[in-house]
């Protein structure tokens, strides 16, 4: 690793308190990025200047250095390729045996390492006493007891970490005997993996590579195969080892290695762990009997969803703040800021293309997307609290069985609820929330159906059309639309998993960590990390998309002579300008495609504008129906106009609602899909398949409705 300063890496099991320690070490000096080529979050930070500003990286949680999950693969690759100056292995003192299984593997890498024995307070509560000094003597690496959530022992940890990194004394690999037979296999393999030899040239001991070969690690064997001679030799020795084991009716070498590791871990635990009665177990059992019970579990889940949703939107929209005497809302403040910026820019520049580009294209477009920042921050703050409390795993367990019928998994439900499963959410944080899903196929299916749910931006469109055509059944219609959107999302997932994203889901295996109080600081940093990712996207992709859409709705300009005809009628002028623009021409060109759904050219333009943001549908319809500047709040007048328009019927309005629910996601969501799948292909696919799906649904409903005499 080419760098000027030291680099510490935090490695450990999931739920070992690694991220809490990372927050305690780095405070505000942290940021989030993605590991190259994947969407696993990379949390990077630095120690304070007082401690030398050392770089600290929080690796994803891993149970082993095999590659059973993307997180484990990323953690292993990072250690192998970046060769950090020091590994800080975070151990959960209340679950030492399983945590030490990873420690054994880390020690064999030969990277300088210390152990942070975390959560000793929780261990004590559970009647577990650990002799840290004895653990240090057994493993021959420094062990520091900490309680990361209370920042206890953190300064001592930094001191020991710096001493170890500076002295490099632990750099010699820990050599562990796996028994005579396995050791013999390993020696045979090592002869074919000379240290530093290509492709195993990452300064890792050849014995470690030999162990991975004997464990039949697909990634390592793949690396060997790419190098012809080495691959052939390794393959021959490996086949011989496996044949020997089979002949002797012995378990495979991989099983013997794991058994030997646990045998060694058990022998250490017998020496260093003392147990007394665990009174907390009764509490855990009692809470779990409620949280995962088939009846009470669902009640708790609905309450948690409702609480999370209410908190997020009440704070974002200012309802809770008004109780504290604070005027306005975070969403309103951002809207107000961009409105002010637009006005200032407008006043400073003469009317014209530049002014329109800056005000309507850039400030309006990016501002329209950045208003979601408070919602994203609050939603991830709540998700982080739920996750850290240990409840998220229970929620995923409870929902797993019903969602598996549709090719999804338990954790998909949260992403879908955030996306608008509870009407008014937002697909962008929902899609970002799919990062907690382990299986890439289930994750992709969830990402592709999240936009079907009723996000907050679709609600003004529904409200306007319901007010115009279904006023008597307002409440019932909103409930029906929520159920319909869930039906389409689940049905869509079922179809995608059978037709496009095929493949069996891996069997569920999930830790249900003990419940504990989450830390406020940790939740705030997690939420801020997500906001940073979102804002980076707004500054790049969304900015470009906003400009493209503005160009389409602005050019070509209406000739001066034609514009002069509407001098006293700004509404008619706006309509004529829109009709003359590229978007207007496209709207008219699309009439043959959309007239079977009952839509005419003005609706087509509004739908095209809706790709920028779904709220734009209302304002564009307003412009197209000669209402000049129609805001979401003024949609009532548009409702009256549409209700009185002979072209519109309740059937057409319902088809438009269904089409808006299902068709291409907004630019922000498409950007989120591209970012999360790391592929333009899926962003494009989502746009095309959802529009085709929306067309089919609206066509069937419209033509079916006409056939049974519902008008048209």
């Amino acid at each position, binding site marked *: 690793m080419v760098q000027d300063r030291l680099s510490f890496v935090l490695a450990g099991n999931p739920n070992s308190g690694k991220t809490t320690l990372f927050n305690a070490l780095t405070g505000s000096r942290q940021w989030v990025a993605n590991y190259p080529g994947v969407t696993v979050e990379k949390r990077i930070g630095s120690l304070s200047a007082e401690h030398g500003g050392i770089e600290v990286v929080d690796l994803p949680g891993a149970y082993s250095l095999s590659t059973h999950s993307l997180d484990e693969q990323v953690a292993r690759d990072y250690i192998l390729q970046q060769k950090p100056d020091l590994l800080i292995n975070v151990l959960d003192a209340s679950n030492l045996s399983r945590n030490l299984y990873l420690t054994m593997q880390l020690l064999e890498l030969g990277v300088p390492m210390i152990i942070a024995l975390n959560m000793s307070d929780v261990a004590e509560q559970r009647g577990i006493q650990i002799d840290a000094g004895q653990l240090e003597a057994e493993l021959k690496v420094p062990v520091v007891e900490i309680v990361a959530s209370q920042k206890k022992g953190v300064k001592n940890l930094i001191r020991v970490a710096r001493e170890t990194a500076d002295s490099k004394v632990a750099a010699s690999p820990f050599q562990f005997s796996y028994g005579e037979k396995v050791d013999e296999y390993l020696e045979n393999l090592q002869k074919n993996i000379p240290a530093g030899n290509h492709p195993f040239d990452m300064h890792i001991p050849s014995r470690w590579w030999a162990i991975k070969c004997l464990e039949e690690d697909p990634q390592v064997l793949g690396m060997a195969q790419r190098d012809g001679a080495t691959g052939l030799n390794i393959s021959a020795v490996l086949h011989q080892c496996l044949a020997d084991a089979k002949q002797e009716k012995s378990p*495979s070498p991989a099983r013997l290695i794991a058994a030997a590791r646990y045998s060694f871990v058990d022998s250490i635990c017998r020496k260093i762990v003392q147990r007394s009665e665990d009174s907390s177990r009764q509490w855990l059992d009692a809470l779990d009997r409620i949280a995962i019970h088939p009846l009470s579990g669902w009640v708790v889940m609905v309450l948690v969803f409702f609480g999370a949703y209410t908190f997020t939107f009440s704070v974002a929209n200012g309802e809770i703040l008004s109780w504290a005497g604070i005027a306005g809302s975070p969403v309103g403040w951002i809207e107000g800021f961009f409105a002010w910026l637009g006005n200032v820019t407008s006043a400073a520049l003469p009317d014209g293309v530049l002014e329109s580009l800056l005000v309507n294209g850039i400030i309006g477009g990016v501002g329209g997307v950045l208003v979601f920042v408070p919602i994203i921050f609050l939603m991830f703050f709540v998700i982080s609290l739920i996750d850290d409390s240990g409840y998220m795993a229970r929620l995923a*367990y409870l929902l797993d069985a019903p969602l598996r019928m549709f090719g999804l998994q338990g954790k998909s439900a949260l992403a879908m609820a955030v996306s608008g499963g509870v009407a008014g959410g937002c697909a962008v944080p929902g899609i970002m929330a799919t990062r907690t899903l382990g299986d890439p196929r289930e994750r992709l299916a969830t990402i592709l159906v999240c936009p079907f749910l009723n996000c907050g931006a679709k609600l003004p469109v529904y409200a306007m059309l319901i007010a115009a055509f279904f006023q008597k059944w307002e409440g019932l219609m909103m409930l029906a639309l929520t159920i319909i959107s869930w039906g389409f999302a689940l049905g869509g997932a079922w179809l995608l998993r059978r037709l496009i994203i095929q493949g069996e889901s891996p069997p569920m295996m999930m830790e249900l960590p003990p419940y504990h109080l989450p830390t406020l600081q940790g939740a705030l940093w997690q939420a801020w990390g997500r906001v940073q990712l979102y804002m980076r996207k707004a500054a790049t992709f969304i900015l470009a998309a906003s400009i493209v859409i503005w160009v389409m709705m602005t050019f070509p300009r209406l000739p001066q002579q034609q514009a002069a005809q509407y001098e006293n009628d700004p509404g008619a002028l706006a309509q004529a300008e829109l009709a003359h623009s590229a978007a207007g021409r496209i709207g008219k060109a699309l009439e043959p495609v959309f007239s079977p759904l009952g839509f005419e050219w003005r609706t087509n333009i509004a739908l095209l504008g809706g790709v920028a943001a779904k709220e734009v549908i209302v304002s564009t319809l307003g412009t197209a129906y000669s209402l000049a500047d129609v805001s979401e709040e003024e949609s009532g007048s548009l409702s009256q106009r549409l209700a009185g328009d002979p072209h519109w019927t309740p059937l057409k309005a319902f088809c438009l609602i269904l089409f808006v629910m299902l068709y291409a996601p907004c630019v922000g969501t498409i950007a989120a899909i591209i970012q999360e799948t790391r592929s333009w292909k899926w962003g494009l696919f989502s746009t095309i398949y959802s529009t085709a799906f929306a067309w089919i649904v609206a066509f069937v409903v419209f033509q079916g409705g006409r056939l049974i005499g519902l008008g048209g």
Partner: protein
Amino acid sequence: MEYASTMEMPAVFGITSVATGTDRENQFPLSKCMPGEVVIVERLKGRNETQARLESVGVYPGQRLTVFRIGRRSAMIVDSSDMRLALDRRLAESILVCRCT
């Protein structure tokens, strides 16, 4: 501080495939257990990757498991050492156990 770099395994794990030497007829899949039952893992079946995955979360031959809950259609929940695990029924089928005596 000076650290040694060689360590011997204290107890060589048995070459047999079972943890307690129970006859194969007395082994049964974890999925057949009842809530509250305490069992010992005898063998893991299935693909190498599945077995390695189970081992990495602490399910390995010789380990004692307590069944906490069995859902009708959902995964089963077992306590292993100091952790609680939700295991898919398919995975539970691949874990052969015997009753704790």
